[in-house]
């Protein structure tokens, strides 16, 4: 029941509504915003105050609710952001894979036999250098997708950095780990398409299985991965303790190689390049050997990859070029009447990217009085992937010098004949792997003939390497192959025997 309004004599102070109003305000002040006072039917000023307090309390209640909602919303947003930041800290931004740090955390929690597969792409640097970093990134994303598709849900694929990935397999056996590594290797066999470019993105993998000792698993898998690299890449190696010896050996070789360059222990031998039509030798290919003080002659396959890894390849290449040019100068002086022949020198991708290479070669030719036409630079086709690259421009400048260019190892990379036409090269060396069976396999012979025809159609001359039998030489001659080299004609010989060998070719074939 509403209280009655006070009569004028008693005054407003004795009005019970006032007491109720005071109590309601005290309740509101204590934080209970539900307190209300029922106004009377009088509708007088005191009821207006009561109504006003009721309305203000109601508004305050809603303001609080809205404020709380906003605080909740903002808190949720902050928590989401924090979760995202935490995720970023443990995730590789490019691929979305876990990073090294989180993989290490996961691995250290493993309790049973654990396997680590270290995955390193085989030619990622070339992809980045020749096709650009965007293409490189696309390849990395695709590789990570394929690796994930090759493992089970319980395995962890992580990107450790650059082109290096790792797969962690918990509670496993060597057999199971190798199976997974094989699936991963298979998943990378198909080329990756980036726009209109098709890129080969195979990897070398090292597997280490053992107790859940993360640092050791990683070290061992890493060593096995390097072993896979040295065994021809695109392959899997399982860690064995003797690989540690190989790693030590490799480190020793690396140290010795530095001094070998200073002590001129790297020597050149020369293998003739023969004109199949006339039988004359038209040139010699310079091949480097390391005359090691205790190990004897070391073949380039054992030290060139180390030189590349150490960044010594530029110094090594410079030394080889100078030796070969100086030697050619000496031969010309010694046998001015011998028909002109060329010296072929291999040039690595790293050297090709070295600014000033063309100036150095020009100056060296001048120093030793060698005509530029006497020099042929052999460049592996894998470095010739893109038009307009720094390498392509360098090739143009070298060609302008008057030096000839030859594409090496044709048939092992990605070159297309139409692209070869655009290059400033004059000759193409067909890899020996293509001709090794031509004397026994008619289909292969037909295939090689087609390749030779294509090279010729592109306006280039072919040199086939690795000719070991008379039959192979005969077949190639019959196919119209202009040049060849290999043990059948001559093994590589030291410089002091070159003129004699070349003269022998001239004499024997008239």
């Amino acid at each position: 029941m509403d209280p009655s309004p006070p009569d004028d004599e008693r005054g407003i102070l004795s009005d019970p509504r006032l007491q109720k109003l005071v109590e309601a305000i005290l309740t509101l002040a204590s934080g209970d915003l539900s307190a209300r006072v029922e106004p009377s039917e009088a509708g007088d000023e005191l009821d207006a105050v009561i109504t006003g307090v009721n309305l203000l309390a109601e508004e305050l209640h809603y303001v609080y609710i809205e404020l709380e909602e906003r605080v909740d919303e903002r808190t949720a947003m902050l928590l989401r952001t924090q979760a995202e930041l935490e995720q970023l800290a443990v995730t590789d931004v490019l691929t979305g894979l876990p990073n090294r740090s989180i993989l290490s955390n996961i691995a250290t929690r493993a309790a049973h036999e654990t396997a680590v597969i270290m995955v390193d792409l085989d030619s990622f640097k070339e992809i980045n250098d020749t096709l650009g970093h965007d293409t490189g990134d696309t390849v990395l994303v695709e590789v990570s997708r394929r690796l994930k598709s090759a493992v089970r849900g319980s395995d962890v694929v992580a990107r450790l950095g650059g082109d290096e990935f790792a797969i962690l397999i918990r509670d496993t056996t060597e057999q199971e780990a190798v199976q997974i590594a094989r699936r991963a290797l298979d998943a990378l066999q198909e080329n990756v398409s980036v726009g209109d470019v098709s890129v080969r993105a195979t990897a070398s993998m090292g597997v280490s299985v053992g107790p859940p000792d993360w640092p050791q698993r990683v070290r061992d898998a890493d060593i096995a991965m390097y072993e896979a690299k040295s065994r021809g890449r695109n392959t899997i190696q399982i860690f064995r303790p003797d690989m540690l010896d190989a790693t030590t050996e490799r480190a020793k070789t690396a140290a010795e190689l530095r001094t070998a360059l200073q002590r001129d222990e790297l020597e050149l031998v020369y293998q003739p390049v023969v004109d199949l039509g006339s039988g004359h030798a038209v040139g010699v290919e310079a091949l480097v050997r390391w005359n090691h003080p205790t190990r004897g002659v070391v073949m380039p396959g054992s030290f060139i990859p180390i030189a590349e890894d150490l960044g010594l390849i530029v110094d090594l290449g410079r030394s080889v070029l100078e030796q070969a040019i100086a030697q050619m100068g000496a031969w010309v002086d010694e046998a001015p009447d011998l028909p002109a022949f060329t010296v072929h020198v291999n040039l690595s991708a790293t050297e090709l990217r070295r600014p000033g290479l063309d100036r150095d070669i020009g100056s060296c030719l001048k120093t030793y009085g060698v005509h530029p036409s006497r020099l042929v630079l052999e460049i592996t086709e894998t470095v010739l992937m893109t038009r307009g690259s720094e390498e392509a421009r360098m090739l143009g400048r070298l060609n302008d010098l008057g030096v000839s260019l030859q594409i090496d190892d044709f048939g092992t990379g990605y070159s297309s004949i139409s692209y070869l036409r655009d290059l400033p090269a004059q000759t193409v060396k067909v890899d020996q792997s293509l001709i090794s069976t031509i004397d026994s396999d008619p289909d292969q012979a037909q295939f090689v003939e087609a390749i030779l025809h294509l090279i010729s159609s592109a306006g280039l001359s072919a040199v086939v390497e690795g000719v070991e039998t008379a039959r192979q030489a005969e077949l190639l001659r019959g196919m119209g192959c202009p040049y060849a080299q290999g043990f059948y004609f001559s093994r590589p010989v030291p410089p002091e025997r070159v003129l004699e060998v070349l003269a022998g070719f001239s004499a024997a074939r008239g």
Partner: protein
Amino acid sequence: MEPVEIPGGKGRLTLRPDGLLHLQWDERIVVEGADAKAAMAKVNELCQGTPHPMLVDMASTKATSREARAVFSIPCDANRIALLGSSPVDRLLANFFLGLHTPPCPTRFFTSRSEAMAWLVDSTDEGWTPGSGDMRRRGLS
């Protein structure tokens, strides 16, 4: 025309022959959100898209809920609204509405019916500004 009842039974609406809408709330009622929506729907139904000025008889209304006040901020077919009350409580309720909300059309509080009617038909008076209230000048002093 005859007054039509607002669904909910707390008031009636009439469209008078002179074109004025008259919304009459019953005494001692609390206008809730649903009542406000029903009233606005009736206004729109009677006007059929032609705006009319409206007199809202709110004398002795007990309270207007927060939701109802929000509903009254939505534009309807009334193009001018005079809130007619008598008590200090009416004044407070009207003031609260006009102070915290932006009315959809010129809206003023009156305590004099004749002044309210005069203002509603005086189309030249454009002195309204949203939230201005201005009830003292209009007879409530």
